[in-house]
Structure formats: C-alpha cells, structure tokens
C-alpha cells in the first residue's frame, strides 16, 4: 500500500512516522526544504521538497501508483486542489483532506473528496467533554425567529438548587419549556417547581442571551 502525504508539519510528520511503523510505503511532499531534510534525517529518504499541487512533482512521486492521498497543509484551498488533482488526474482511489474551516465541508464533499477531517472541530469536541459542567447544548435552530432550543444540565454544585424556577432572573425572551428528571415524566415548570441537581432544562432563547441563561440557571 503506497500512501502520499502532502504537508510535513506536525500532523504530516507524525502520521508518516506511525504509518512507517506499520510498514506502509510512505512519501511526504513538503514545500519547506529544511523540514524535508529534518524528516529525511530521521526516517530515511521518505520526503521530497515541492508543491503537492504541481503535476510534475506528483508525477515524479509516482502518484499514478498511489493507493491513498492525504492532504494535510494549513490551507483549505491547497488541500482541496491537491486532492482533486490526485483524484481526477492521477486517479488515486482514496483522497483524504484536512479541513480548517468547517464551513467548507459541504463543498469538499460535493466535489468528491472521500474523507474530510476537521481537526479543530475534533479537538473542540474533546475539550467540551472534559469541562466540569457541560455547557449549553444546541438542540435546534429556529432560524426564522432567530431563537434556538437548548439543553442545559444543572450541575450538582449549582447555587440555584432548591430555588423555585419562577424566582430565577432569566434573561429577556427566555422560556423554560421542559424539565427532564431521571426516572420521572417530563414536566413543564410551574409555580412550585424547584431546581434539582442534574435537572435537564430545555429552553428557548436567543443565541446572544445563551450565556446569561446558563448563569441564571446555575448561579444565584
């Protein structure tokens, strides 16, 4: 299996390293000559200097017999074009592109890039999971009305526990629609409904007041 990687930065470097350990045939194409020398000194001659979007470079890299093409540069447009050249000109069966701006995902898919990897998005998701109180989760965007439906869990340490929902100082326009408690039926908060730990509050809110709503629900 022959794999070509465009971009020898931190991602490309580490990927090449682990693929070599698994005995794949790997070639890295990188613009910066110093980076190329560094990789070659460490891993043997597996890197060449050049632009991964240039036909001549890819031709000399033996792109026609490659099985997988992975574009990992720091620019979406370079990754897109490199993958399209690989796919349509060199007929490489599988193309994988790193995506920096998640808004480009739709375009990449439409244009036939097989796999897109949004590294920023992945890291953000991981970080969110590690936060002590899960922040506001977005359930639905009511685009027309410019409101959204969100899900906020009351942390066990919230200072509002024991207060009545009706006494919380909610931001303007916020509506608490539903309270979900484990083992109980969903309920609409009434005059006597108190805040309990781990209540899941489903609320309607305008996006700019999201943080205020979370504060109102969790801090006195």
């Amino acid at each position, binding site marked *: 299996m022959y794999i070509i990687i465009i971009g020898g930065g931190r991602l490309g470097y580490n990927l090449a390293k682990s693929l070599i350990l698994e005995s794949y045939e790997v070639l890295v194409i990188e613009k910066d000559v110093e980076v190329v020398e560094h990789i070659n000194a460490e891993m043997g001659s597996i890197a060449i200097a050049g632009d991964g*979007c240039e036909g001549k470079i890819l031709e000399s890299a033996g792109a026609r017999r490659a099985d997988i093409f992975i574009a990992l540069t720091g620019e979406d447009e370079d990754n897109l*074009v490199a993958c399209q050249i690989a796919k349509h000109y060199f007929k490489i069966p599988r193309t994988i592109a790193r995506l920096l701006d998640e808004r480009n995902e739709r375009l990449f898919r439409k244009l036939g890039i097989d796999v897109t990897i949004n590294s920023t998005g992945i890291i953000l998701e991981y970080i969110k999971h590690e936060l002590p109180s899960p922040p506001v989760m977005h359930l639905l965007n009511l685009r027309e009305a410019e409101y959204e439906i969100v899900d906020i869990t009351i942390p066990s340490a919230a200072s509002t526990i024991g207060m009545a929902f009706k006494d919380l100082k909610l931001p303007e326009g916020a509506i608490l629609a539903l309270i979900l408690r484990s083992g109980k039926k969903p309920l609409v908060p009434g005059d006597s409904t108190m805040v309990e730990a781990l209540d899941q509050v489903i609320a309607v809110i305008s996006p700019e007041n999201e943080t205020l709503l979370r504060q109102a629900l969790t801090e006195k």
Partner: protein
Amino acid sequence: MKVVIMGCSRVGARLAEMLAREGHQVAILDINASSFRRLPQDFTGTALLGSGLDEASLNKAGIKTADVFIAATQGDNRNIMASQIARHIFSVEKVVCRIYDPLRRDLYGELGLETISSTTIVAQMIKDGLEQQES
C-alpha cells in the same frame, strides 16, 4: 449583467473598470484594502473588503443574483476553490477562473470550469510575435 470579481489584482481591477464603464453592475472583492488603489477614481462599481472563499463576503457582494463570477487573484488554488464555490454552492451560470499552471488549467477545464491561463496565452503570443519577425 451582474458581475462579481474576486481579487483586485491588476487584471481584476482592469476588468472591473472595463465592465463598469460598459454599464454592468460590478462588485469586486479583495482581502487587502490597499489593492483597491488600482481602481480608477470614478469607479461606479462596489469594492468590498473580504474573501471570495467566505460565503458571507460572497453574499454581501451579491453572489446569489450574479450572472458572472470571475476569480482573478494571484493564487491558483484560491481561484479554483472560489470558482467551485460559485459554481456548486451558488450555481452562478458563468464562472471564469484564472489559473497560471497549465496542468491545473487543463484539469479544471475538463471538470467544467472555464479557465484562462495567462502563462500559456502570453507565451504563445510572444512566440507568435517572434515567428512573424522571422518571416
């Protein structure tokens, strides 16, 4: 005709000037405000600071109702990506893409973009000029 041009390069600015003078509705985008100095004082079109790769900027330039999109920055890949956004996301009827690299020009021509490679055109013109002198 409503035209959106990405890149206020020499070519982009000149084209914007020509089209605006003929009475077309022109919006020109550039990520660098200083590029707009290339436009004439009496330019009747709209100069907008923004990237042709960014949907919000394209919307501001009126891409949704544009008849023509022209990518004229210095970067082949930027031009190619912007042209494909105009074509595949906004369904602009006529998209013209400036590409320096002849291989990329040929490939994207096959993939349905209207491509112009100044490299090939200028080289051919110089060669033709030389041959005329010789004969």
